[in-house]
């Protein structure tokens, strides 16, 4: 499965456009991470726990989107976009969406 956030794929032609596919996830940060983060607040620097949280959410949302694309029989997803929103204290949504297509490498 080829995934890009461009409308076309260099070296490939889009043969069929199958439609919008999407995946989302709402994740909560846990207390341990909050405590670690409050210590980090003393000196600043990267909050690795929160970075990991974002990475996990992004993977999950992408996976759900790709599962949908697979069901439609696509071999690529183009024009992928991510969107985030915070739902309540400590919970955030990550939403991934794109267009499922069938592509072929041009000779």
């Amino acid at each position: 499965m080829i995934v890009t956030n461009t409308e076309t794929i260099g070296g490939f032609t889009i043969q069929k456009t199958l439609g919008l596919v999407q995946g989302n996830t709402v994740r909560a940060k846990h207390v341990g991470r909050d405590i670690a983060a409050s210590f980090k607040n003393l000196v600043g620097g990267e909050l690795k726990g929160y970075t990991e949280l974002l990475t996990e959410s992004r993977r999950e949302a992408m996976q759900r989107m790709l599962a949908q694309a697979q069901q439609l029989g696509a071999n690529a997803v183009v024009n992928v976009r991510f969107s985030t929103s915070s739902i309540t204290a400590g919970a955030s949504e990550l939403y991934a969406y794109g267009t499922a297509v069938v592509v072929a490498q041009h000779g």
Partner: protein
Amino acid sequence: MEILIGLVVFFVPLIVFGVLIGRGVENAHLRRLEAHERARKDFFVTQLKSFPHADDEGPAPALVCAEVVIASDYLKNFFASWRNLFGGEIRSYTRMTDRAKREALRRLIDEARSLGFNALCNVRVESADIGDRRKKGAQAMASCLVYATAYHGNAPGSLSHA
């Protein structure tokens, strides 16, 4: 009065701690970023939707993502609350968000390079809200998610093809 002294005894070391360590950490990080940015002249990054200077070598284009969350510190919060009185740019926060974005781009480029690509197009930067701003006393942080399409190309000035 005792409460006041208690507060001073509690907060002054924190602020000093922030000044000394936070500044050091930040400057070291900015130096690392600058070194990385100088060393990646061979990597072609655009936010165009086409694939400029693409060639047939390398793997098929792929989406790459990177995310970073940078914490604020007490010194930055102090400067920011001071700024709130008069308005104007909060430089300490500007530096913080700048670090988050540049660090995320650095990771993005490193990931693309490790997958065998030498160019990125359609770079998008998304800020990811994970702190809760409505909560009183919520900690300030800069979080961002950047993503782009990685591909192989031979851009002019690209060292790998010069």
